[in-house]
């Protein structure tokens, strides 16, 4: 029988496969970059500058997605750029999640003065314009991979704290929390054993969303040249360079943009798909 439940799970399945497939492919390419990329991403060859992608006239073998103004292979640079994007996504996303979700959970469940302190902190934090805040942080910390990650964590923990706090408050009002107290469970035990499992789907969705956002932030920072050193390929850096030659070689701009778009979309869809898959009520 085709009831709503089977419909949801089938759609979630497709979503999970497509988004997961792209991310697995990207991760494999990033890990195996030295073996799978057709060229050295940094090798310049002015005789092979602005080669078009493979289906256009004048394309050369070894440059499937064309080359940029300095003759560097676009595909190889995207593959090496994926390394930076994925490292930032996973590390910054996870750290942001751990810090933000913990604070949100404590604020939402315990209430009282912990909530007061954390909520005021979130309010103050959110009054800063995030992009300026990031640029300021990088200016102070200096460029580099760890600076980008720190900037993302410092700016974005409020996203988790706010949402998780609201969800934890909603759960804390449920009778199963009172019944845990009747059973003699400690406050911390109730938070971890009763509330956390119910907030986990929300956290999971936020985590994957945050990974996508981290990819975007890294691209923005490298677009304005505030990411890692310029001799390492990044998607944002490629987009910035491609912008200068958009009329002569559109592919230098478009392909990293497509990779960025697919990656961010996949992260968010992966979260939704996982949530549906692991929710016992929907399963």
């Amino acid at each position: 029988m085709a009831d709503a439940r089977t419909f949801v799970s089938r759609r979630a399945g497709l979503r999970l496969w497509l988004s997961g497939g792209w991310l697995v492919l990207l991760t494999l390419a990033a890990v195996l970059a030295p073996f799978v990329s057709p060229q050295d991403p940094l090798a310049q060859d002015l005789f092979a500058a602005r080669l078009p992608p493979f289906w256009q006239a004048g394309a050369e073998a070894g440059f499937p997605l064309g080359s940029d103004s300095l003759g560097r292979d676009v595909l190889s640079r995207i593959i090496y750029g994926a390394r930076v994007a994925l490292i930032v996504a996973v590390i910054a996303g996870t750290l942001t999640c751990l810090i933000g979700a913990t604070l949100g959970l404590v604020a939402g469940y315990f209430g009282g003065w912990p909530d007061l302190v954390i909520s005021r902190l979130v309010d103050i934090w959110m009054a800063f314009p995030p992009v300026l805040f990031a640029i300021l942080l990088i200016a102070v910390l200096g460029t580099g991979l760890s600076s980008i990650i720190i900037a993302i964590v410092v700016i974005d923990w409020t996203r988790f704290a706010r949402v998780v706090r609201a969800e934890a408050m909603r759960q804390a009002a449920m009778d199963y929390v009172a019944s845990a107290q009747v059973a003699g469970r400690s406050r911390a035990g109730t938070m971890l054993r009763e509330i956390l499992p119910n907030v986990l789907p929300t956290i999971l969705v936020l985590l994957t969303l945050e990974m996508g956002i981290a990819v975007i932030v890294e691209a923005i920072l490298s677009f304005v040249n505030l990411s890692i050193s310029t001799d390492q390929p990044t998607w944002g850096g490629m987009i910035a360079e491609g912008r200068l030659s958009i009329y002569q070689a559109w592919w230098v701009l478009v392909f990293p943009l497509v990779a960025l778009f697919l990656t961010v979309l996949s992260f968010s869809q992966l979260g939704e798909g996982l949530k549906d898959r692991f929710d016992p009520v929907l399963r």
Partner: protein
Amino acid sequence: MSDMIYRIRDLRLDFPDMTRKPLFGPAPRIEVLKGLGFDIPRGDVVGIVGSSGSGKSTLGRAMLRLLEPSHGSILFEGRDITHLPESALRPLRRKFQMIFQDPMSSLNPRLTVGTIIAGPLRLHGFDDLGRRVGRALDHVGLPEAMRHRYPHELSGGQRQRVGIARAIALEPDFILADEIVSGLDVSSQAQVLNLLETLVRELGLTLAFISHDLSVIRRLCKRVIVLHRGEIVETGDTAAVFRAPKAACTRELIEAIPLPDPNQTWA
């Protein structure tokens, strides 16, 4: 050991009234329980009845110390628990258990029935959890295989049975049932009440049964306490209260029971 399970004297409880809170300064307090006193002897099945807003659920939550009274005293088996901190209450909590009104909300949706019943047992250091869970399920008439199900997979009546199983598995001295049949359809209501009657008889439970429905109380409870606006207006044998209700609000509650023949009387 004292044969009084509960000895409650001049119990008062107030909440801050946030709707009338001035811009600065504390909110005025609104008194929900206005000096209640009663005893519950061991083996007693007492009904606590009142219309909505009478404070019956607040009384229940104060008796279980989910709320802290502002005044008066609650003695549980001779021990003063009125202001005990949570850490001191925790080891005692096994002895007074509660069945909640809404079994959907009171069962953690992410845990299986088996885990829900075993959780409190583990906290209080019981051994042989698997067998105890099985026995509790058996007591409430649920098949053993139910332990692997999630709450949303059960019917309302089955969920409420799980709530009862969780409470009796701890072998408590006292159980509070807070409006446990008001969310169920009539036939599940009858089944849950039958079950409770059987359990009271077989396990010798001491039970306080909170309800707004006097017909349910009449069937289950030997004694009844009628609450109105935070005060006890009437108390006594259920039969006697039904025969000759003294307070006006008791009469109202009795008249609110739908009868098959409207002209019939309870006498």
